[in-house]
């Protein structure tokens, strides 16, 4: 039997994902930021005597194809014909939310309106006559509070009724919005022609198609053109005619007239006693009062920088102790294995490959968790949306859009994101050129995978100014990304900017549960990645660093040397000499391994930036996933030390190594932060941009930028005598 499919549709920030989680028991990411759900998500609901698949659609204000999310939502509704649509509506903001409801009704889908945030509406002094609203809309309306789970049972019982008897439970035909004489006349004519030809009859009702043609919906027009080119041309010319007429007589486009009438229809409903205000309807809410300060021309940016710096300060100062605990745990573990296992490939694999590789990545969990926690706070409270708004002015200068900010932040603009969801988040951008420019520059941000290497090298070489350096690297990644975006927008992606218009969600107190879910979800992804991809790559790289091993003549030379020591020395001195020889032998073996040869070959170029062959190996591994840089350095610098019986942390090992100094660390960090995005991100860029050409372009141009930066800093530093 086919499962019952229900769709969850609503405005951004109306609480769709919260409701989805409450109904399906899933732990999807909920944010107080418009556009958190970019792709649709599915979950299973069981209860009230039935089970169904619930699909969480991206939040949209309309069903006209203005952006990717609207297309996703509309295609799902039209193609998969869900048994019922749960339209979640923010009770505190009815007018705007019912705009989408009107369009869903016009699509003639079986709808149940879930009136969410009844508590917020009550606090604002609003009383809503739910029964009257249901009568006037002609569909069932159920009041709920998704955050606390109130009313969900009744909602699902109603949904069940609608699914079982769609005709009896709701009456979508009741609604017929008038769009004024001019549009109504042509709408009637076009509808009958579309019905006659059966155009798109499998997907949409004829009147809806006609309306979208008048609204100049380019996606739909393209679809019609494919199926019936002649009719498409006729409809288009008629729509243009009415639009010209409207422009000439009223100086406004058809879309604005249609929107005006839809809002007029909604206001008509609300005025018939559906909603009563206890306070002055127009008073400023607390949110607006806070905004007066937080987005103030002068105070706003200062507060924003303060908030961001505090996040670093808190994260680094609070995580120092737990990070050292985890580090000593792994050190203890490798010490234990070292003393209990016999020498050989297995021991080397376990200690050098797995513990130093994966352990190095897992060691940063406390830091990552704290960072995610801080980000969750500013996201759930609604501050992040204000950051986008304030940053729009700066972003415009660089040819980007305020909505790019979210993609930047998700990618690690506040260190600790991931470029993969960041690349996806660019879907909220409407202009293709601005979107491409964002897509190509988000990988410059300091994602969670770059954090360990930043923390490692900053900890080893610039320990006195940790948060300052971290903050500095974050700012630098923004600067480079923005400059790169500007250059792209001036060259390959030239085009006019689009204005910034975004709804700001009201400030909300984050719930502890919400914060915990966010933090854990992101941390778990990090752990999962460490346990799977990073583990696999660590083992692969360990193998590359171990085999084929020393060539026979070199091995023979080391053997001869060993025999000489055994013969010449006695007692402690002999032990010491043997240990030193062993260490030299391991280093030579690493150099002779597959990875070593590659690293040495690359030294011909990378010496310009101060990278030695071990760093080269790590950077090659970093293309698979950036965490691998740390794990590979861990492996590379632990090989040749298996026998010392004295496990030292990688950062201390690097600080002591003659190949490293603060200048090399700086140039390595610069290269690591800006070179080619990791493999997964590259695949995502190819998918989102629709071509591998852009993906390869991304690899090439970012590696070039990274190389030039590292070169400049290293050679400049050398000239200055560092």
């Amino acid at each position, binding site marked *: 039997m086919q499962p019952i499919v229900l769709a969850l549709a609503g405005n951004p920030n109306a609480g769709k994902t919260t409701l989805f989680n409450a109904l399906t028991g899933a732990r999807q990411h909920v944010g107080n930021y418009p556009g958190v759900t970019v792709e649709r998500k599915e979950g299973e609901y069981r209860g009230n005597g039935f089970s169904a698949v619930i699909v969480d659609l991206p939040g949209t*204000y*309309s069903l*006209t194809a*203005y952006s990717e999310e609207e297309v996703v939502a509309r295609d799902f509704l039209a193609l998969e014909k869900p048994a019922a649509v749960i339209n979640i509506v923010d009770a*505190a*903001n*009815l*007018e*705007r939310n019912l*705009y989408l409801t009107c369009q869903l009704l016009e699509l003639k889908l079986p709808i149940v309106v879930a009136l969410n945030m009844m508590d917020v509406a009550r606090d604002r002094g609003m009383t809503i006559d739910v029964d009257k609203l249901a009568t006037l809309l002609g569909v069932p309306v159920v009041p709920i509070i998704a955050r606390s789970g109130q009313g969900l049972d009744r909602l699902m019982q109603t949904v069940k009724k609608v699914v079982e008897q769609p005709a009896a439970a709701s009456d979508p035909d009741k609604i017929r919005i008038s769009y004024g004489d001019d549009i109504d006349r042509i709408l009637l004519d076009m509808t009958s022609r579309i019905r006659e030809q059966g155009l798109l009859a499998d997907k949409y009702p004829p009147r809806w198609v006609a309306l979208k043609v008048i*609204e*100049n919906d380019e996606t739909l027009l393209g679809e019609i053109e494919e199926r019936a080119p002649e009719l498409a041309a006729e409809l288009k010319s008629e729509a243009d005619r009415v639009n010209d007429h409207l*422009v000439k*007589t*009223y*100086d*406004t*486009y058809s*879309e*604005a*007239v*249609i*929107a*005006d009438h839809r*809002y007029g229809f909604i206001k008509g409903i609300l005025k018939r006693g559906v909603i009563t205000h206890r306070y002055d309807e*127009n008073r*400023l809410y607390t*949110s*607006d009062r806070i*905004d*007066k*300060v*937080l*987005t*103030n*021309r002068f105070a*706003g940016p200062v507060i924003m920088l303060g908030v961001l710096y505090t996040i670093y300060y808190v994260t680094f100062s609070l995580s120092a102790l737990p990070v050292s605990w985890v580090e000593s745990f792994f050190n203890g573990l490798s010490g234990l294995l070292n003393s209990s296992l016999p020498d050989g490939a297995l021991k080397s694999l376990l200690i050098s490959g797995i513990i130093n590789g994966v352990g190095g990545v897992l060691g940063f969990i406390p830091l990552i968790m704290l960072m995610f926690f801080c980000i969750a706070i500013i996201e759930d409270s609604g501050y992040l*949306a*204000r950051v986008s*708004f*304030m940053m*729009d*002015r700066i972003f*415009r200068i660089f040819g980007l859009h*305020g909505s790019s900010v979210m993609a930047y932040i998700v990618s690690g603009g506040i260190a600790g994101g991931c470029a993969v969801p960041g690349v996806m988040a660019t879907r909220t951008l*409407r202009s293709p050129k601005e979107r491409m420019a964002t897509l190509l520059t988000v990988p410059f941000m300091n994602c969670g995978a770059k954090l360990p290497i930043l923390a490692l090298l900053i900890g080893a070489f610039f320990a006195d100014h940790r948060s300052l350096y971290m903050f500095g690297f974050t700012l630098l990644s923004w600067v480079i990304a923005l400059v790169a975006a500007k250059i792209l927008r001036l060259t390959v992606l030239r085009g006019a*900017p*689009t*204005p*910034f*218009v*975004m*709804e*700001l969600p*009201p400030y909300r107190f984050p719930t502890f549960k919400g914060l915990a879910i966010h933090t854990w979800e992101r941390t778990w992804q990090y752990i999962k990645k460490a346990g799977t991809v990073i583990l696999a790559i660590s083992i692969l790289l360990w193998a590359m660093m171990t085999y084929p091993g020393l060539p026979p003549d070199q091995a023979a030379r080391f053997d001869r040397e060993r025999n000489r020591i055994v013969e010449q020395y006695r007692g402690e001195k002999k032990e010491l000499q043997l240990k030193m020889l062993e260490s030299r032998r391991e280093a030579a073996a690493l150099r002779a391994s597959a990875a070593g040869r590659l690293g040495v070959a690359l030294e011909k170029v990378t010496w310009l930036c101060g990278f030695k062959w071990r760093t080269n190996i790590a950077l090659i591994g970093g293309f698979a996933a950036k965490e691998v840089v740390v794990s590979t350095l861990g492996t590379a610098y632990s090989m040749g030390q298996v026998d010392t019986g004295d496990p030292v942390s990688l950062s201390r090992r690097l600080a002591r190594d003659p190949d490293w100094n603060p200048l090399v660390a700086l140039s390595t960090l610069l290269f690591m932060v800006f070179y080619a995005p990791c493999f997964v991100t590259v695949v995502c860029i190819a998918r989102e941009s629709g071509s591998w050409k852009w993906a390869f372009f991304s690899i090439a141009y970012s590696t070039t930028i990274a190389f030039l930066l590292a070169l400049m800093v290293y050679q400049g530093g050398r000239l200055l005598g560092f």
Partner: protein
Amino acid sequence: MPFGSRNKFARRHCRRACEESAGRTSSGCRRRLRFEGEVPLAEAGCGRRLRICRIAGGRQQCARMAALGIFPGQEVELVCAADQARCLVRLNGSTVSLGDGAAENIVVTAA
């Protein structure tokens, strides 16, 4: 193409509003009203109710704003944060932020 003042909806609302504001100005409310007639949203004063007269800009951009409730004839309140070019407006119970380009394109009058 800009929306001219001939827009029926806008005109219906705007003309009355302009006349009213002009009248009040002459009867001694000069301090409360910082402008007369039509001005871009970016230059209107804070914390006041305004009515949108017309919106300039591309067709798709206007359509997108219309879906958010920003279209000629609509009443909005300027929360006025940030600076002059970028605005926060309240309409239909929600707060919408407008960047430089958007706020300059919207012409309003006192409501």
